[in-house]
């Protein structure tokens, strides 16, 4: 039994399973993502680039940059938690 913001309480209905609840289907989505990534990486030399920066012409620059950038982002943010994270009532004390 839970309640929404307006105080209406509601029953939690039994867990109805949908397509996406099946781990096999989640795997399918992940494999599709791998395939799309592989395809985008492989066609890179076919794309004619016009930009002024040499780095852009490295095979798969955008792909690698996006991947490495995001991993860096997450790891750095995780480290930030060590310094910055506080309990929720930190300012109420």
């Amino acid at each position, binding site marked *: 039994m839970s309640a929404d913001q307006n105080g209406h309480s509601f029953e939690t209905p039994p867990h109805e399973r949908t397509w996406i609840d099946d781990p096999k289907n989640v795997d399918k989505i992940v494999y599709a993502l791998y395939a799309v990534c592989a395809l*985008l990486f492989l066609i890179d030399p076919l*794309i004619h680039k016009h930009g002024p920066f040499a780095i852009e012409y490295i095979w*798969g620059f955008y792909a690698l940059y996006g991947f490495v950038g*995001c991993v860096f982002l*997450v790891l750095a943010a995780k480290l930030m938690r060590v310094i*910055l994270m506080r309990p*929720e009532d930190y300012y109420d004390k």
Partner: protein
Amino acid sequence: MTNELNPGLIIILGALLVPLLPGRVLRGAYMLLLPIAAFAYLMGLPMGEMGQIELMNLSLVTLRVDKLSFVFGTIFLIATLLGVIYALHVGDWVQHTAGLIYSGSAIGAVFAGDFVTLFIFWEITAISSVFLVWASRNSSAMAAGLRYLVIQVGSGVILLAGVLIHYQQTGSIAFGAMGTETLAGQLILIAFGIKCAFPLLHNWLQDAYPQATVTGTVILSAFTTKLAVYALARGYAGTEILIPIGAVMTAFPIFFAVIENDLRRVLAYSLNNQLGFMVVGIGIGTELALNGTAAHAFCHILYKALLFMAMGAVLYRVGTIKGSELGGLYRSMPWTTVFCIVGAASISAFPLFSGFISKSLIISAAMKEGYYWVWLTLLFASAGVFHHSGIKIPYFAFFAHDSGKRCEEAPMNMLIAMAIAAAFCIGLGVYPDPLYALLPYEVKYDAYSLEHVVTQLQLLMFSALAFTVLMRTGIYPPELKSINLDTDWFYRVPGRHLAQVANQFRSITWQWVADSTVKLATKVHNALYRHHGPEGWFGRSWPTGTMAFWTTVTLGAVVILSYL
């Protein structure tokens, strides 16, 4: 005079009637009519400077319509309409009135042709908007609202100081290009920078917006910061310092967004990041870049409002917006889920969604002008925004693990507002030409070149790949019940201690001054009492004989002296 009224005033004056209207239906219909009427009126206005008023030797230009103010005015009116629709179910007239006065004053400021008119509307936005925070009616919202108000009004005071100096030096109050060579120019830049949430001046945004009401945050997200972007574009186009400022703005908030648990605060961080793109565009200052800023502000208002609407709907139905407590809501709120994904795809700049056709202009401008590091930073920020706004928001709210929470779908008016915003996001993404036609300069820009589409997809899909890999290996930081320190710590902890110490010092000093005054007064009183009191020497009554005696002595002395 009839066609010289600032469209913002239609909304502000109209808002004053809202509390008087009986019944939700009548009031709702009236509120919907206001932005529509203002828009119809705006469409009929000619370009140029109007509404001149002479006031104490100042010539105010209360209405300036040109391409830059028109595009911002248009999107502000659309945002007002969406905000009204989204809030139709709310019975609280305070929120409706404050929200409309706030939107009206932001629109008024956009069409202001001089600094005094700008200042007046600038302060009205500050004062009216705080009620949207306070309307949450809890102690933390009251405190956050107060902090917000101090900073917002402070920005206005700095603006006024700059304007006064500018007026004294040049004799003009026209709101035009400023430059940073003069003190006036620097002060006004700081005033704009506070409202634009420049790095280190930013934290009022993440502090206050997530504390506002469900509907209040949607309205707040549209106006204050984009008004500042407009003001910067008007006054500081091509100001080089804005490029590094904007680049930092795109990058640093996304680190906070990754570890933030309150999903509306995540959106506030990503709002900050999106403003960075616009500020970079203003700093570059070429026609392409300024068009990019205007276009990005237009698209951003829509998808950011859409994302705040979706998260607001979750908060409204579930009662919490903490990532650590949500998950699996797609079962209960399928439509909200779909609209949220559209907003997420738009902010991530997926091809065929609105962010793609606007952010590209700014990144291309940075490339074209040879800003290598800025370009790399913008690419990193683009990947990052997909990571935390594009994936994290819908994933942790609607998918991830099933939180077991079941609720109703969002109310119909919320769904309609989200549907309209989502339609704009897709419509502009698929067919950007009408937006491009609205921009301040002529554009010949093809967002959908093969090179562009593929490189953007590479960046985004590999960001998604990084998320997937980090999720599946358990490296991705989980959502935790927590808060993270930001610059507000400085005034909320050491600042508060400093204030407490200062207060103690004040009370000690006051005590000392009061005590010594009382002591002195007592001393004086006692001395007077001793001499003049009933027992005192001066207070005694003297017999007449004494006087006769002393008169004789004096006369005798005079006689003796005169003989000498």
